């Protein structure tokens, strides 16, 4: 399942970060395979997704979130 398809309060582990122009950018924010995340909130009108990963809280656009798959 892709992160972009998750509902609020979904809990899961990252399976893979698909190859893209910004995959290493995502990883620098700690979005790496094996990391656990929680979907905290989703902005309306297909807006960004708000997740917590480790001790960090991150907002990410839906387009980028579709490159993150979950177990």
């Amino acid at each position, binding site marked *: 399942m892709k992160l972009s398809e998750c509902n609020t309060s979904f809990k899961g582990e990252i399976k893979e970060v698909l*190859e893209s*122009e910004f995959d290493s950018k995502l*990883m620098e*924010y700690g979005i790496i395979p094996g990391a656990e995340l929680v979907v905290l909130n989703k*902005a309306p009108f297909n*807006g960004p997704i708000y997740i917590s990963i480790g001790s960090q809280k991150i907002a990410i*656009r839906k387009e980028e979130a579709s490159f993150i798959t979950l177990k």
Partner: protein
Amino acid sequence: MKKLHVALIGNPNVGKTTLFNRLCGVNQKTGNYPGVTVDKKVGKFKHLDFQIEVTDLPGFDSIYPKSMDEELVVNYLKNNSGKNHIEKVIFVADGTNIKKNLYLLSQVKDLGYDIVLAINLIDIAKRKGIQIDTRYLSKKFGIHVVEISARKGEGVDELKSALLLRSPETKADDLKYLREENHEILQSFVQENKAQNMYTAFLSITQDNTLPEVNVKKWKSEEAILRYQFVRKVLDKSIRIDKSLATDTTSRIDSILMHPVGGYIIFLGVLLVIFQSVFSLASYPMGWIEIFFSWFHDSAQLILAPGSFTSFITEGLIPGIEGVVIFVPQIVILFFFFAILDESGYMNRIIYLMDRLMQKVGMSGKSVVPLISSFACAVPAIMATRTIENKRERLITILVAPLLTCSARLPVYTILIGLLVPNTMLFGFVSVQALVLLAMYLLGIVTSILAAFIFKYLIKNEYRSFFITEMPRYLLPSIKNVFFTIWENTKAFIWNAGKIIVAASIILYVLGTNGGEKYRNTEQFVQSKYPELSQTELAPKISSYELEHSYLGMMGKSIEPAIIPLGYDWKIGIALISSIAAREVFVGTMSIIYSIDSEEDLSIMQKLEKETNSNTGKPTFNFATCISLLLFYAFSLQCMSTIAVTYKETKSIKWTGIQFLYMTILAYVVSFVAYQILV
């Protein structure tokens, strides 16, 4: 005295600026990096027998830059050579959320820098039950580690001393960022190119593609994974969190402030409070400033001997300075709110909520902050666009920001609306004048949205726009930082806009009181034309003839043919010319023109109402002309400070020119159409 050059670096929002202010106090100056526009802050302080120079670099998140600010820092760090090279780095980290900081720290360390780690916000971290084993960190990274609270000044002296110490040795377990099977590739690359540093060589491969056979993406993502593994291992052993103390207030506040419906209502409420304060609260100190300046003006007239120097002071210089100072209350209030929103962490939630809507018109959630500042002044707004990573989103934000109603337009609008509609109440409580003013604000907002939408289709997007941002935890804003933000921004406004407005007022006064031959022979000419009039009856004729033939009058006359179709005469022409310096100069010019013109002591509004158009003989400020002028001021880019800052920020004559032209043409066409329909 021995010298030491230190750079201050770290992720954004870790309190770097607070520490810089704490270290250097007033011994700092802001300059520019060669060729780029990001401010470079340099400060100095003395410690023991060392003179320490500190360069404060903008905050950055990674060695792979995604915005202009970041690119600058990374290039600066990668090319550290020459006379003034960095000898020591203070790496500032946020004690409440150190993981990401340590990731960046390990990258900077691998570049070969001699680092002292300053763990800031330690007071808050301790309150949250976070305990950091600094000795372990020191051993693992091979650096000195100091715990500080820049806000309270704790640990700053230890930090100063640590700068002078030699760093502890590290075991050479380098290359922790590359999978073992690739070590050989990097090592042979280093030997071939005689690179001095392994990590610089690594970056040359991953950033500049110097080894085509390497899968750069793979190397980069493996670096991230390996580094996080390393950082996590270090953190597991060096950080203890007492869970009983750590409550997750942030998540609870977020569920309210980021609510899909409630969040927007709260944001709208926050906006209303800001605008309400900027306009109603500020009106009190603005009234006092007016009273003060009129007292100042009158006493200067009393004390100084009458003559051209005195009238230069009272009619040129004092109104010029007043024109700047009058905006200070609004700017102070606006930046008070911005500082609080930013410090508290709410600003990032606004960015989150607004991102999707702003994307529809080619901008980013991060454009919201500059656009809100535009309601006070476009200059700080355009400077604030630096945080927008995507070039196109940033450019569009810069281009449309001056369309929003800045406070410099307010005095112009106030006068024109006063002439346009009577001060009556609708339904007994809604002021008609306030409604027209509101309509002008809406006009600015709608036009900027339309303009952004058009630019979205005209400007090609070179890079894919992406958006990923960290949400800081909510913090109670520090009074000191709020005060500092207000101080810095107000100072910048007074200096940037002030020097242009004061200079324009002075030039205007000089141009209005000097002229060619006709001007010098005014008295003879008027006397011979009206021989029957007495001396007192002659005086107004003389001043009006003088103004018409002054250099200023000549300039107004020369553009008159172009502005007659808009419903203006040469006197308004003068005001248009002089408000190219800044819009609010319009009011000053009007009062200068008409006080040069008449001896009676009337308010500027009364003077304008009495004025007749020299071409038509009808009142100059009739309905059609007032509307036409309102629209002209709504759209035209009459602000030298904005033009200057757009050039500074875009480094492009082309875009500076496009911004000036599209706004001027828009202003001219709309005013022309409006006047021709209404007249």
